[in-house]
């Protein structure tokens, strides 16, 4: 498939990198010759210097023969114009646009076939809000991903020193079989797809699969205090902070939003009924202590200033907040901040990359979530009638080493599989797989040719 990406910022660059590694033909357009140079040095893609809002540049990039356009610049307006031009130049092209301004998103007919004809809108802010609310459902988790419309949750949890789980072999967890499954262990930045003989060690990040309505089983398994989250403080009441406040309106949480700007505070307090809006600076230690920061279960640092977010998070950690989520846009900062003790990061750009990739790879693969460090993925797929995996117990299927079935969904029923589970056609499966075995896994999952 030929994909044109407009905008070689972080979102465009990372999408291009992933897609090119997956074997797609990628053409990137950007105005900045420096960025174009960096791309041609690092990626096996075609790079065109020019503006995505210029029909000439789009033609240079070969829009006429392309299958998809991804408008991923930082400017909503540029993205929308690029889609409009693309529609005009190539009627059959699929269009994905990154749009952040909520006002645009409310004008639904704008994106319809009669006007822009955008096939998929990527709004990183709302994706980020979803990630944050998910993380709040499991206190202490460093990653929570929804599958099958939220019926299944994938929970990443770091094993603390002295945890009862540390040192136990996976095969000793037989009592929880069928309810819960450990799909991946991340140890020293390396991903293991575990066997029964593997042992959990302190410091591991483990990924669990669980039915969403049985979350309390995870709590008892991980030894988490079941009371869950009660008090949340949000620093930064901008677009994302406001949206998060709105999303939490219906919850039973006590929410405080700290925002610097007086006018914005007034606006938020008018709009939100549940949250308490406080006007002040999130890096002000006295203010935080005054607002009983030590008693908070969650601090979400969402200001637009990433350095401030990092400082706030470190301060809050020192003041005793149990769990901190930090917003960082620059992807290159993410490995750095984890080294200084900030473990849960949300990034609008990373969210955008994920959302774009999920859309592009849809089809047989229903959804994909990269696990931490991106060396492994959790993939949701449909078991095709003619593939090699149906009508056999899982233990008889010849999976490539480094791949594992995490859950089987049959209609409304969710099965956490054991070796004896039989996969039927039309089942939806969740796989854990190392990046390098994904092509092999895809072969296994696709239709056998001799069937026809």
């Amino acid at each position, binding site marked *: 498939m030929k994909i044109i990406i407009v905008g070689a910022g972080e979102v465009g660059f990372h999408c291009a990198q992933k897609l090119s590694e997956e074997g797609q*033909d990628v053409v990137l357009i950007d105005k900045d010759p420096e960025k174009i140079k960096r791309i041609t040095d690092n990626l096996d893609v075609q790079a065109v210097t020019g503006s995505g809002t210029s029909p000439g540049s789009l033609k240079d990039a070969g829009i006429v023969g392309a299958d998809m356009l991804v408008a991923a610049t930082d400017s909503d307006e540029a993205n929308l114009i690029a889609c409009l031009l693309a529609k005009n130049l190539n009627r059959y092209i699929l269009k994905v646009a990154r749009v952040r301004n909520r006002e645009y998103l409310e004008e639904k007919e704008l994106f319809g076939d009669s006007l822009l004809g955008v096939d998929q809108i990527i709004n990183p802010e709302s994706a980020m809000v979803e990630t944050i609310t998910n993380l709040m459902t499991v206190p202490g988790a460093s990653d929570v991903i929804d599958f099958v419309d939220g019926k299944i949750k994938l929970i990443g949890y770091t094993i603390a020193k002295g945890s009862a789980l540390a040192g136990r072999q996976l095969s000793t967890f037989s009592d929880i079989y069928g309810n819960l499954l450990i799909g991946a262990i991340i140890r020293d930045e390396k991903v293991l797809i575990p066997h029964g003989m593997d042992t959990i060690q302190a410091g591991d990040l483990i990924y669990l699969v669980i039915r969403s309505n049985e979350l309390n089983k995870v709590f008892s398994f991980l030894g988490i205090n079941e009371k869950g989250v009660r008090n949340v403080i949000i620093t930064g009441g901008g677009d994302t902070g406001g949206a998060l406040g709105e999303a939490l309106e219906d919850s039973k949480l006590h929410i405080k939003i700290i925002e610097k700007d007086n006018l914005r505070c007034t606006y938020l307090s008018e709009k939100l009924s549940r949250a308490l809006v406080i006007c002040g600076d999130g890096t002000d230690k006295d203010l935080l202590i005054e607002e009983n920061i030590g008693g908070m279960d969650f601090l979400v640092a969402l200001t637009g200033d990433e350095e401030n977010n990092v400082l706030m998070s470190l301060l809050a950690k020192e003041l005793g907040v149990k769990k901190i989520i930090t917003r960082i846009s620059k992807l290159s900062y993410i490995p750095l901040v984890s080294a200084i003790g900030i473990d849960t990061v949300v990034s609008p750009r990373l969210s955008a990359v994920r959302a774009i990739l999920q859309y592009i790879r849809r089809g047989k693969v229903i959804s994909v979530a990269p696990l931490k460090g991106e060396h492994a993925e959790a993939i949701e797929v449909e078991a095709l009638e003619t593939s090699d995996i149906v009508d056999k117990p899982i233990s008889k299927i010849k999976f490539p080493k480094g791949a594992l079935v995490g859950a089987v969904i049959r209609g409304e029923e969710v099965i956490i599989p054991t070796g004896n589970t039989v996969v039927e056609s039309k089942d939806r499966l969740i796989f854990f797989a190392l990046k390098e075995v994904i092509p092999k896994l895809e072969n296994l999952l696709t239709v056998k040719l001799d069937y026809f």
Partner: protein
Amino acid sequence: MNVNSVLRFTGILIIFLGVSMCLPLAVSFFYGDGSSNALALSLVISVGLGGMLFLLTHKNKGAHLSHRDGVAIVTFGWVAAGIVGAIPYMISGAIPDFTNAYFEAISGFTTTGSTVLPNIEGVPASILLWRSLTQWLGGMGIIVLSIAILPFLGVGGMQLYRAEIPSPVVDKLKPRISDTSKTLWKVYLFITLLEIIFLMLGGMSLYDSVNHAFCTMPTGGFSPKNASIAYYNSAYFDAVIVVFMMVAGINFSLHFKLLSEGPKVFWRDPESRVFISIFLAITAIITFDIYGTVYDSIVTAFRYASFQVSSIITTTGFATADFELWPTLSCSLLLICMFLGGMAGSTGGGLKTMRVILLIKHGYREIFRIVHPHAVTTVKLGGRAVPQETLNSIWGFFTLYLLLFVASSIVMAMLGLDMVSSFSSVAACIFNVGPGLGIVGPVDNFMGIPIIGKWVLIFCMLLGRLEIYTVLVLLTPEFWRK
């Protein structure tokens, strides 16, 4: 520098060149020319040598190639290719000593076409085919061919591609580097086949047609005949070869675009417009210069002028006339053609038309700025602004080119060559033309150059083919610093 990757890739390249000896080997069996043992042995040695390098470095693979690695792989790859190319000459006894065999091999791969063989027709047919094959492989680039064939290069491929392709600006025809290389090679192969067919239609034997096509398309200039194309003395062959030499001197991306945009593309592209105009202008001047003084008929004068001009400007080096006997004006114009060379992205050598255009435009801009000191001006090519960085790089390139040219000529003169021969032998090699003037003229060969001189010329040929920077950067201490 990632030594492991460099050795590994060089190993693969050696295996690949070894395997390509199958073609001359088959010809050798067919003609029974007595070289089959020598070629078989060369094949085994090359594959063995390459295989050893490959296996020794097999364990730690998959490292990311940096720009530096790309440059090192390409340069070392070409140096190693020369060794592989020399093996059949030495084993078969066609050129027994190493310096001469290596000279002939590098002259082949760099598509120079300078030869040390005094009697070409005395060499076995299969060895001559190998000689032509080295030119054909080197023309579009042995590294580019490996990128096209070997799928695992991925991102690193771009570093290699850029280090080998003879052009100041690198444009990709397809999003993937391997697809771009494949496309270029397909176009190259297709045009080569076309030339073979046209030559055979004129009555040339299959063997000779293949040899000549293998040496025309890379703008190489080896011929299996002592007298080169003059052997046939046929206006038809002259015409066919002139057309194909010009085709080879044009950017291959344009040939690819011809499919989608039609023949207008050659005139619309500013570089090819200038290239064709220069060819026509110089041909016209030389035609009138030699009409009456050398040839009695204007048609004959045009025939020889157009052949010599296209042969030299595309840096092919075929000859149908001894142009040393022509008037001085014609001789000097031909010498200027050597400098100009083909278009960027073609298989031709020399300075490249695009660089010449940009040098002149840039020079004019500097003069313009004296008149209008505050004017904001950009150098444009085909309506598009050329980045200052590219212009600077071209000036640097030009300066280094001239410096190396002068330095090498002085070395040649110190070795005892006369002035015309020392300048023209270096020009013939650094611009990848083939024949020069004086003792290395179109009817002579390079056997008489002293050994040190041959090594200087080998270095010049590599410099010319890999466009100076790629080779010279390896000689800087910064490159080797960790």
